[in-house]
């Protein structure tokens, strides 16, 4: 057992142990609980940093043991897993800070933070999983640990959303299990490997493997909210804002999208998948999802609901990217994994701030919010412009990369999808910005709270400001080492070189 074996395990255990400790702490131990939370989040960030540094210098990190006859439990850090692990480690720290402020004085905090840490442990496992079997373990653990967060408020509406969430995700999980078991029966235990496994394939396996692919995508598509499997997501926004932020930015929808990336790039392989004709179908489904999500977002009057439909649309950029055959398109998709996460978490933080500070949930109540809460509103504006794809923000980098990628492989219709989607993004975000900044306040805020000199609690204000600043920085330094884009280029090099 060298350090390189244990680091991935420790990265997982930090949040797992944090969760156990938090469950064990008494409900009233707020200060201690917050310290444990923040310490674990900080420690995880360091461990992920060590792994990123090591991988950049060509080291490998792997922990494995045999779990069942013929099946291994594998945690491995590679460039792709670090993309997701890094995102979740950074955003966990910020979301924890935010959640501490958000849940001040509310009941059941011990339960909330326990499951919250468990949820992050699951995403860490999903990022580090070295084969589909291990991936599935954490994928289902994520389902279970997010349910208590979705129903946290215990209201009728929350319980109904929770029920739908669990029906969708467990059914998706069953389909995914079927696909993984079938694949295992056909070809044995396959580790994730850049370039995939199926390049020189016997023709008689083509049929079953195509069917397995469809099942895999269907199973993963539930969490990734591919149309028509997206029904649970808009309802799940009844959860507390930090949960929505985590669900939409790192945990659930990203787990689905990340799984699809793993399956397409590292099980089937881009080349084999496109030869088998699997990618065109995926591209069409994701394009439909992009347009559908944006269109539905236009009609939502509730702020969080509009953001939820926007997520459905934005996450499919990732899937559209990997189904574009060419390396540039894949880079665009992968980099959006990070970019969408940071943009969406900013927007949900801000939506939570409006709700907590002013009691505002509906878009038509936002008139004049910019004057009352300038910090939050600036962050929201940056997030929204990022989504629309305005340069030099992160979202622009995505759309530019994907557009050039699509043109390079001659899929011009994808550019049309991107343009239409950007227009729709503008159509549902700009009216909100107009209300925030240019409309005068019509009536008193529905339920206002005051925090001294600041516009809202400092715990709530800083996280969105930091993520919003990150959006600008990431867009500006896109071509420097360790920026998401250059890290993604490192991954794509490996995928295509094989």
């Amino acid at each position, binding site marked *: 057992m060298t350090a390189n074996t244990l680091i991935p395990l420790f990265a997982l255990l930090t949040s797992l142990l944090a969760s156990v400790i938090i469950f064990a702490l008494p409900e009233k131990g707020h200060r201690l609980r917050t310290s444990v939370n923040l310490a674990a989040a900080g420690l995880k960030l360091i461990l992920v940093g060590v792994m990123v540094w090591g991988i950049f210098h060509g080291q490998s990190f792997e922990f494995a043991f045999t779990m*069942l*006859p013929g099946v291994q439990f594998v945690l491995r850090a590679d460039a792709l897993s670090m993309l997701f692990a890094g995102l979740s480690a950074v955003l966990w720290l910020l979301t924890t800070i935010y959640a501490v402020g958000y849940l001040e004085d509310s009941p059941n905090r011990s339960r909330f933070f326990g499951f919250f840490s468990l949820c992050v442990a699951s995403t860490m496992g999903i990022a580090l999983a070295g084969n589909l079997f291990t991936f599935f373990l954490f994928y289902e653990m994520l389902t279970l640990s997010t349910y208590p967060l979705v129903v946290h408020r*215990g209201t009728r509406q929350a319980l109904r959303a929770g029920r739908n969430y669990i029906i969708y995700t467990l059914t998706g999980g069953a389909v995914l299990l079927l696909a993984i078991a079938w694949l295992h029966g056909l070809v044995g235990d396959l580790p994730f490997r850049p370039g995939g496994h199926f390049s020189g394939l016997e023709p008689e396996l083509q049929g079953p493997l195509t069917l397995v692919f469809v099942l895999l995508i269907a199973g993963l598509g539930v969490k990734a909210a591919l149309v028509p499997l997206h029904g649970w997501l808009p309802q799940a926004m009844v959860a507390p804002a930090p949960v929505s932020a985590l669900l939409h930015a790192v945990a659930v929808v990203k787990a689905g999208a990340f799984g699809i990336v793993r399956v397409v790039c590292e099980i089937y392989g881009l080349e084999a998948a496109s030869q088998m004709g699997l990618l065109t179908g995926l591209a069409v489904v994701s394009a439909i999802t992009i347009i559908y999500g944006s269109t539905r977002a236009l009609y939502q009057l509730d702020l969080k609901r509009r953001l939820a439909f926007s997520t459905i649309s934005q996450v499919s950029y990732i899937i559209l990217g990997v189904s574009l055959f060419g390396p540039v398109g894949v880079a665009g998709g992968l980099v959006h994994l990070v970019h969408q996460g940071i943009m969406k978490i900013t927007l949900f933080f801000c939506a939570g701030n409006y709700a907590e500070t002013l009691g505002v949930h509906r878009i038509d109540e936002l008139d004049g919010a910019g004057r009352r809460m300038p910090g939050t509103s600036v962050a929201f504006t940056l997030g929204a412009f990022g989504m629309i794809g305005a340069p030099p923000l992160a979202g622009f980098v995505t759309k530019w990369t994907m557009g050039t990628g699509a043109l390079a492989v001659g899929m011009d219709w994808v550019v049309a999808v991107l343009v239409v989607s950007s227009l729709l993004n503008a159509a549902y975000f700009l009216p909100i910005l107009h209300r925030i900044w240019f409309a005068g306040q019509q009536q008193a805020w529905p339920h206002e709270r005051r925090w001294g000199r600041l516009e809202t609690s400092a715990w709530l204000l800083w996280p969105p400001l930091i993520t919003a600043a990150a959006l600008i920085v990431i867009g500006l330094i896109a071509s420097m080492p360790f920026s998401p884009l250059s890290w993604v280029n490192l991954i794509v090099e490996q995928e295509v070189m094989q």
Partner: protein
Amino acid sequence: MILGLMAGLLFTPLAWAVLTLLSGFERSRLISWLGILAQSLVSFALWVTVASEGGFHYQLGGWPAPLGIELRVDGLALTFVMLTAVVGGACGWHAGIYLDPEKTWHRYFWPLFWFLWAGLNGVWLGADLFNLYVALELISLSAVGLVALGGQADALRAAIRYLMAALLGSLAYLLGVALVYGQFGSLSLAGISALLPAGSGQAGLVFALVLMVAGLALKTALFPLHGWLPPAHGIAKAPVSALLSALVVKASFYIAARLWLEFGEHLGSYGLAQLVGALGGVGVLWGSWLAFRQSRLKQVVAYSSVAQIGYLFLLFPLSWGVSEAVALQAQQGITLQVISHALAKAAMFLAAGNLIMSVGSNRVDALAGVSRFLPFSLFSFGLAGVSLMGLPPTGGFAAKWLLLQASLGSGQWWWLIVLLGGGLLSAAYVFRVYRASFIENSDTDQFFHPSRSLEVIPMILALLSLGLGLVAEPVLSVMTLPFSKGGGG
């Protein structure tokens, strides 16, 4: 050495039974807790010995069956001996705190508990059909007595019903045994198995096998013979329900599985195997659905047993006429299912007992708000539920994975529907309980807090069933410990 340990496992529980019969509740409890410790140590010692010396076959006192007692210990038997020590020990520990010493009839729990344990070890270690019958009867009668311990009219009614079913099952089994004895003049499993090829294809023998399996299926509560189980398991005291669901039904299944694996090749047929599997499959779906419909918490758990038992009978189709590799996967999967269900169901019944004690009502709806007051027991219940749903990383998941592989490997894809559909249906009834506990606006704020050790025991069992999935490989390796053909006088 091994002989001494095996005899210890069989006869010391009988000695504890007599001792506790003669003492009051408090002293019996002390004796029993010491006894549990002793039994666990002996079981552990047996494992160590078998792991170093191999399995063993023995005729006690040199008398062949039916007069003497034939014993054998192999990896599988050892696995179950240790499972009994863990689950039985936990239930005995729990019962000592849970049962009210003031009620005079509660002291009879202890002798019944020890008779039950003796019977269970007799089943795991028995090697001839008649002594298996004796052990099975010992189990049934003490189990009926334990159900009646509830003391109310409902408990007595359920106990009588249970007694009828158990006796009917025993009769069918005994009839089959008599037919086999008439044919071969031997009752030893190994002896008959050696003689079988000569006598294969005989309708009488097939009938005997069907009779024995049917009788055992009734005792195991295979659909549609499950009617007696939910009332009996639902009404019994929590530790008793846990013992019954975790261990008692497994004993009769264990014998049925042994018979099938020894004789099935010659006497079984594709149709019979598929029929038993289909009944199991229907049991999984129907039991889960009924569990979902129950309004009382312990009934939910009891019907869930009917469903989980159904999975076990998939052993029949998945081990008949398939390749060695698939048959091994099926056996391993079923063994894991037995272990994980035993651990999870015991945890669930004990936790349910705590929850009911806490809210003072046995209805699922009454759980509103309990997550704030009794999170620990609720958590144990939840973890056990994860294992029943077959979600990773629990033992239930490991079992399901192996069974999925066996179904795919043998081309019997229709069992996939049972495995995946059953998992989703069990999620439905488990989440119904979670959901009730998350509701915030409860009417009652009166919660009774059970003692700490009552809460710890189900948590330990639930964690074991959870961890089983992670260490499935070493646990399964106990099952395949080599069998040395030693023995004799």
